[in-house]
């Protein structure tokens, strides 16, 4: 019953479910977060009437009781603290010795671990250094190769230009070149027909191809 009470939330939906479940949920009590029931809005609870002399006497007795209880609690609290401090001081020498032993043992173990770790670190460092060296060499080589290729390309270009330089028009050759150009005019205009035949020149008479096969090719 009690578990069901916890699991099932208060909801009107459950009224339609098993009435046995509902009974335990609705057991005469609403959850605190729901507002006051409609039927209870105007209910005014009666205030208890305690006669003045009774009130005063009860107040006095309760105050006395509370004073006593606080004193007792404080006494036992102090007692406990006192006991703890004395027990601590009694065992302090023993505990100091134990602590020192424990410390030495820990130090030894720690030293051992450190040595092992440093060995591993040395090895790892060596491998790392070798890897770095290899990487650096590879990079240097690649760079050299790139440079060499660049130089080769440039020198090739220079050679070609040198060969071409024989045909360059120099101030000495200028007159000759002009005369040559005037003597051999070149007409770059041309026209094509539907078959793709090419007719060079604008003013020159059309030169017909020698046979039809030539056109089709």
């Amino acid at each position, binding site marked *: 019953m009690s578990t069901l009470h916890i699991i099932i939330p208060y909801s009107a939906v459950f009224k339609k479910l098993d009435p046995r479940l509902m009974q335990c949920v609705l057991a005469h009590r609403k959850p605190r977060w729901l507002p006051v029931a409609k039927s209870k809005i105007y209910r005014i609870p009666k205030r208890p009437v305690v006669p003045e*002399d*009774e009130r005063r006497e009860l107040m006095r007795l309760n105050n006395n009781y509370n004073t*006593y209880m606080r004193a007792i609690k404080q*006494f036992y609290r102090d007692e406990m603290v006192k006991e703890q401090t004395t027990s601590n001081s009694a065992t302090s020498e023993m505990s100091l010795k134990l602590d020192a032993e424990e410390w030495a043992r820990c130090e030894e173990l720690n030293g051992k671990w450190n040595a092992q770790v440093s060995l591993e670190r040395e090895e790892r460092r060596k491998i790392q250094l070798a890897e770095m060296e290899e990487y650096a060499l590879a990079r240097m080589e690649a760079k050299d190769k790139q440079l060499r290729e660049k130089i080769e390309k440039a020198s090739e270009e220079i050679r070609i230009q040198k060969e071409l330089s024989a045909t360059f028009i120099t101030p000495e050759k200028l007159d000759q070149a002009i005369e040559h150009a005037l003597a051999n005019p070149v007409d770059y205009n041309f026209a094509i027909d539907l078959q793709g035949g090419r007719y060079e020149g604008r003013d020159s008479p059309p030169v017909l191809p020698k046979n039809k096969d030539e056109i089709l090719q």
Partner: protein
Amino acid sequence: MTEKIIKYVGRTTDFKGKTLWEIVGSLRNLGVGRIIVRSTFERYPEASFMKIVKVETCPDEERRRVRVWVEKTFRGKKLPKLTEIYRTSYKPDYKLIPKNEEEQLLARVAEQSSKPEVVLPRQIEMPPLMKRFIINDHEKKGLEVIKDFMMPINFTYSPNRAHRIAEPGEKATVEFAIDLGKPASPSLYEGVPLK
């Protein structure tokens, strides 16, 4: 003129009076220098009242509060510091003392100061069963045996404390004991032998 009839509906309350703003807001100079009383504290035989020293108004909200500094006299003892009233200023429990009655209140305080002072004890005797238990316990643990069976009283701190706590070595004027003590209302114990 017909008499005005007031009918109260709903829950009753212990409060009696007005809120602090209702009093202070209708007075000249916001009531500085006047004396007010919480009617809750009128239950004590000694005089408790507050003299207004400074007033700060606060915005008008649902519960209109007002910040008031007062010289507080609680159960015939004047507190050394000023007390600020803000959080409780909305409670409809304050009363203004008319100027012609202020003298009376002050006279009551003077009368109170002439009465013998109540000094509370620092220590209290252990209950009988606890005494025996402590003896056994200390023997078992090998600790030194307690002889006087007194334990210190743990007083809660309050600035409003009405009675002084005894200094070390001072004799208290009241004693707490494990018996019924002196009844506050002897009429309840008629025909009952005390002790």
